[in-house]
């Protein structure tokens, strides 16, 4: 109660002394997230996290005396809407930077707006095309698919398993994974012996898996987001497939284990470190950020913080870092973002440069195995 009273007095005093100037001190950050629609599983935690972090910064007195304000819009996963809202953020809301959008398609559509209006954009989607080639005003926080594929392939190479079957979902995420899996196979001495897909709404994958069982691969790699991979796990168990199964980082959430149940046991997947924050060795540079994020998210939303929220956490923190180093204008924030070195975030350790606006290395991913309905790090 007392704290609240103090806060009110402080607010009153602040209003009295600074008046108009106080309001204009706010740094406005725009956000475009797919809070509803098919990509809501990305947008919702992202929006929640961004709001949580900004509230926290303000509660601690802002950065260099300046408060932040988040102007977040829901794109519903629609690229056209995302473009309109991006323009609105720039023209009407006069934001200094934009976080999001949540999906690769939307990000690609918004990039021309950011470039034209000279507003830094920190995308929360994974598509490699967003920052390859590097664009002056565009950064991103989500890990590239390339890194996830490399992680799986280097493990397979280590175990001398060279014949793999791939089973990917026929949507944007699966198509991108399939492309990367095929493109990098040769580099790791891996042959793809069968290449199947399934529809995002399919309810039975036994046909594909029966075929895969027939070609006897050393490992099966399945690339998709829930619920498809959980069905693949269940169907594989039904068919008695003993081949080691690898999944993508698209299912690295407890939801997958819940859906697949016992069938999830022994499945391996590359994942950001957030799901195993408490298992990380204490010298891991990301550990502090990860634990703080997980605890905070739990407290505010009574749900486990995930990677997707983490992408927004990283984006806000990167902007915070830029403002801490003295930037207040879009131009300044962009320049300072590019100067980010060794920022230990949720998605990994970011080091941006003029050529690299994705900023992450292979250490952004770890390989985990599901044992006793929990994640175990494979070293």
């Amino acid at each position, binding site marked *: 109660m007392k704290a609240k009273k103090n806060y009110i007095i402080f607010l009153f005093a602040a209003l009295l002394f600074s008046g108009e100037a106080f309001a204009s001190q706010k740094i406005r950050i725009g956000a475009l997230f797919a809070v509803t629609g098919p990509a*809501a*599983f990305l947008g919702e935690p992202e929006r929640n996290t961004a709001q949580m972090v900004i509230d926290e910064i303000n509660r601690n007195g802002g950065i260099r005396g300046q408060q932040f304000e988040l102007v977040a819009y829901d794109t519903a996963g629609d690229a056209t809407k995302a473009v309109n809202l991006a323009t609105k953020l720039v023209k009407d809301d006069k934001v200094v930077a934009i976080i999001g959008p949540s999906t690769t398609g939307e990000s690609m559509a918004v990039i021309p707006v950011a470039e034209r209006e000279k507003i830094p954009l920190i995308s929360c989607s994974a598509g490699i095309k967003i920052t390859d080639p590097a664009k002056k005003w565009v950064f991103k926080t989500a890990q590239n698919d390339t890194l996830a594929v490399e992680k799986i392939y280097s493990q397979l190479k280590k175990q001398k398993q060279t014949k793999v079957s791939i089973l990917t979902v*026929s949507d944007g995420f699966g198509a991108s994974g399939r492309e990367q899996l095929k493109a990098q196979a040769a580099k790791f001495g891996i042959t793809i012996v069968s290449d*199947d*897909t*399934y*529809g995002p*709404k*399919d*309810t*039975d994958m*036994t*046909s*594909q898996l*029966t*075929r895969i*069982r*027939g070609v006897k691969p050393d490992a099966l790699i399945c690339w998709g987001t*829930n*619920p498809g991979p*959980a*069905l693949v796990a*269940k169907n594989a*168990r*039904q*068919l*008695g497939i003993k081949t080691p199964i690898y999944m993508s980082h698209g299912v690295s959430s407890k*939801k997958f284990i*819940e*859906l697949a*149940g*016992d*069938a999830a046991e022994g499945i391996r997947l590359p994942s950001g470190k957030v799901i195993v924050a408490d298992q990380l060795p204490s010298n891991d540079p990301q550990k502090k950020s990860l634990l703080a994020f997980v605890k905070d998210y739990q407290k505010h939303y009574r749900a486990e913080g995930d990677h997707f929220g983490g992408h927004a956490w990283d984006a806000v923190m990167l902007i915070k870092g830029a403002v801490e180093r003295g930037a207040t204008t879009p131009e300044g924030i962009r320049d300072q973002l590019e100067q980010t070195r060794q920022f230990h975030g949720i998605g990994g350790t970011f080091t941006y440069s003029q050529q690299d606006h994705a900023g992450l290395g292979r250490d952004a991913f770890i390989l985990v195995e599901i044992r006793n309905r929990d994640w175990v790090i494979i070293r």
Partner: protein
Amino acid sequence: MQFDQLLQFFLSGVATGAIYALIGIGFSIIYNSTGIINFAQGEFVMLGGLLALSFTELLKLPLWAAIPCAIAVSTLVGALFERLAIRPLRRPTPINLVIITIGGSILIRGISMLIWGKDTHALPPFSGEEPVIIGGATVMPQHIWIVGITLLLISINKFYFFHTISGKAMRACAYNRRAAGLVGIDVRRMVLFSFIISSAFGSVAGIIVAPLTMTAYDVGVMLGLKGFCAAIIGGMSSGMATVAGGLLLGILESMGAGLISSGYKDAISFIILLLILFFRPQGLFGKSESERV
């Protein structure tokens, strides 16, 4: 291609097909008594699964008690849908009715999204998860439940339509609504019955597949379409023809995915749908003026 692979494709197809058949029968019961395609049929499939989940998880009911409760609630929703959306219509032309069912399906889906969220949920299987081996192929115990329950429901359905007064009255409506009305059958009540029966069927289908395929607020769309395909192949009969249609569809899909390419799985069923509509609109097994119930 070995025999055990073919057998696996076949058995997977039968299990999926049984579901399509059950949903398809829901379509045809309503079609026969009202002359409309109820595009909200898929939503009752979704409701069945999600309600069963809520009854087991929130109210902590055992599965055997949760299932009848879930069926009862979704049947009630079906009845309300008929009373509130279909019956009050002043000019019930088929196009109006079809649009209303589409609107109803969007409404039910939207409300369900608000209640259960956008996540996928899994229902526990009825009897364990140990696969059963049938001649080199494997099926889950749940598959056997699905086929068994489908067969049971279809027999009950057959009995109802041929051996009870209200069943016979519904058949009369299917043959000729006006004549049925003239001999004293309350046609509107029969329409209500048809919605009740088909939403019950839909929800049963939703419950028995949920342990295998999992369920979410939007599963009704695809399952509804596949059920519709089954009903079209069966010539909108609510008897064995639709069952055969569903099984045929399931087996072709599974064989297609296994033998040709998994990318064409959905294409196969919709190509079949188009071919049937072009060349045999009365259904694969029907004579041109066939008995529809």
